């Protein structure tokens, strides 16, 4: 699942810059892992300046992606219900 460091795996048309996968195709975990990787590399100080700029910009985008996903938190509970015709449907479910 960790395609964050393998640009070849995500050679889609909407791939992001530098051969990196587009941010919005990443799962939360992938985005978080890539953000962590970027932070570690920047903290190691071993990246050249131009890469550092790109890393930073991508890191900001990944952070935004993660925060957006975390902001989506909303509880909804539904129950699978069988219609009289045997179809599978959804019905609101109350816990009480």
């Amino acid at each position: 699942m960790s395609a964050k460091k393998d640009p070849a795996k995500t050679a889609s048309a909407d791939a992001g810059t530098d051969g990196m996968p587009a941010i919005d195709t990443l799962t939360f975990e992938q985005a978080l892992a890539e953000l962590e990787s970027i932070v570690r590399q920047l903290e190691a100080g071993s990246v050249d300046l131009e890469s550092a700029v790109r890393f930073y910009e991508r890191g900001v985008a990944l952070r935004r992606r993660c925060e957006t996903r975390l902001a989506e938190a909303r509880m909804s509970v539904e129950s699978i219900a069988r219609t009289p015709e045997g179809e599978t449907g959804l019905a609101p479910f109350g816990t009480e």
Partner: protein
Amino acid sequence: MTDDLLAHNVPELTVSELSGALRRTVETAFSRVRVRGEISQPKCAASGHWYLRLKDDEAVIDGIIWRGQAAKLPVRPEEGMEVIATGRLTTYPGRSSYQIVIDSLELAGEGALLKLLEDRRKRLAAEGLFDAARKKPLPFLPGVVGVVTSPTGAVIRDILHRITDRFPLRVLLWPVAVQGDGAARAIVAAIEGFNSLDPAGPIPRPDVLIVARGGGSLEDLMAFNEESVVRAAAASQIPLISAVGHETDVTLIDHAADVRAPTPTGAAEIAVPVRAELVARVLGLAERLERSTTRLFGDRRERLEALARGLPRLDRLLEPLAQRLDDRGERLERVIAGLMERCGRDLADRGGRLQPGLLLRPCEAGLTRLQDLGARLDRESARGLADRQARLEALAPRLESVSHRSVLARGYALVRRVSDGTLVTSAGRAGAGEDLALVFSDGTLGVRVEGGGAPVLPSPAAARAPAGAASAGADAVMPAGPGSGVPETAPVSTPAPASAAVSAGGTVSGTVVSGGVPDAAQPAGAPAAASPARPRRSPRKGEADQRQASFLDDFE
């Protein structure tokens, strides 16, 4: 016979009648019995009916489970299974046998049940259903959680509460009976139902499944030990968390699930991360991103500034170079000076060896050769001279015989104008008062013309002729003419004899010139005088010329 007849007063029955009576009796008497025994030779016919035997140590009874009942059995009949069968007795007249028609089976005793489960577990494990390789990783943050459990009871509430606490998200409940008849089938249907949902359909396909049930007796949990349920859980494409009973309860679905949770609440914790933690983690990463980037750029800036400070000024950079240039220039001068000095020494050294002596030898050689050649020349020329002298001496009398001297000797005289030495060949050419010189064979007399230029000579013709002859003679002998000091340099065309005569005359100019040296004696005396001197003379060419000239002088 009568006895026989009497003996035969018992009504006579057919086999069918008897079998029928027997059947009614048995079915009436044993319409519902519970019998405990061990299953032996269970066999499922193609019709779906089960045939088996129940036995104990001493007896055996056939048993049958009709297809309809077999499907509802909580346990599948297995060889050696200790069961309590509930059913009714009936007979099978066709074979003169009786049997029990089993409505339900239950395992006899906990130990027997555990043994059954252990055997089943081993069998399924041997199939590989529980292999670790089959386990699927759970999603880190699921979007939708599917729950398979009873819609009533504490389990679903616990799960929902815990999910809400951690990370509110969408939950789909597939309500099932979790125990009793049909529970296993409902659970299998729920697992398969969730898996068959189209991800793009109206009902979202869950990212993770929780199959849960609250605590209960072993028998209560039996649906989760059912082979069909275990197989459905193992086959689920959606990662599945099992949470059945309490922590100590282990059901077979736990082995097949990707993750076993100790409780339904635990399953919720496993399935869903804590949002607050994630928020903190993202914030922490964001902060580290900012900090590390700032430090990274700060470090570069510091290094740049340090390097810029360390960059020397241009003139500082050039100064040592200029110094080196000066140094090199100086050294170059010294080197050149040294070089020239050495060359000078070399020159002096070699020049010293260039002594006149070096030239002397070739000079001496040349001189020797020159002397040699000179000697040869002397010899040769002496010989030549002797020849020529002989010839000359032979010629001299002849010359004398045709010279004007001989004419003079016969009494004629030459008249010269003293002023310019020219011959006066006619009386008309001499003006009155002019000084003339009369040249005789033995001397010269100075005279002055008196009167006009009329001829005074007694015989002008005679005088003219000799004069003309004398003139012609003077011209002819000019090179050796009297008074000529350097005859060889005088052009032939100039009247050198006249001028010579004038100078000669000049020296004797006066009234009378008396007694000159007899010319005639000289030609004879000169060679005689010159001859002795010849060997003494230098053999040089110039001297030879001189000698030639002086010879001519002598000759004169």
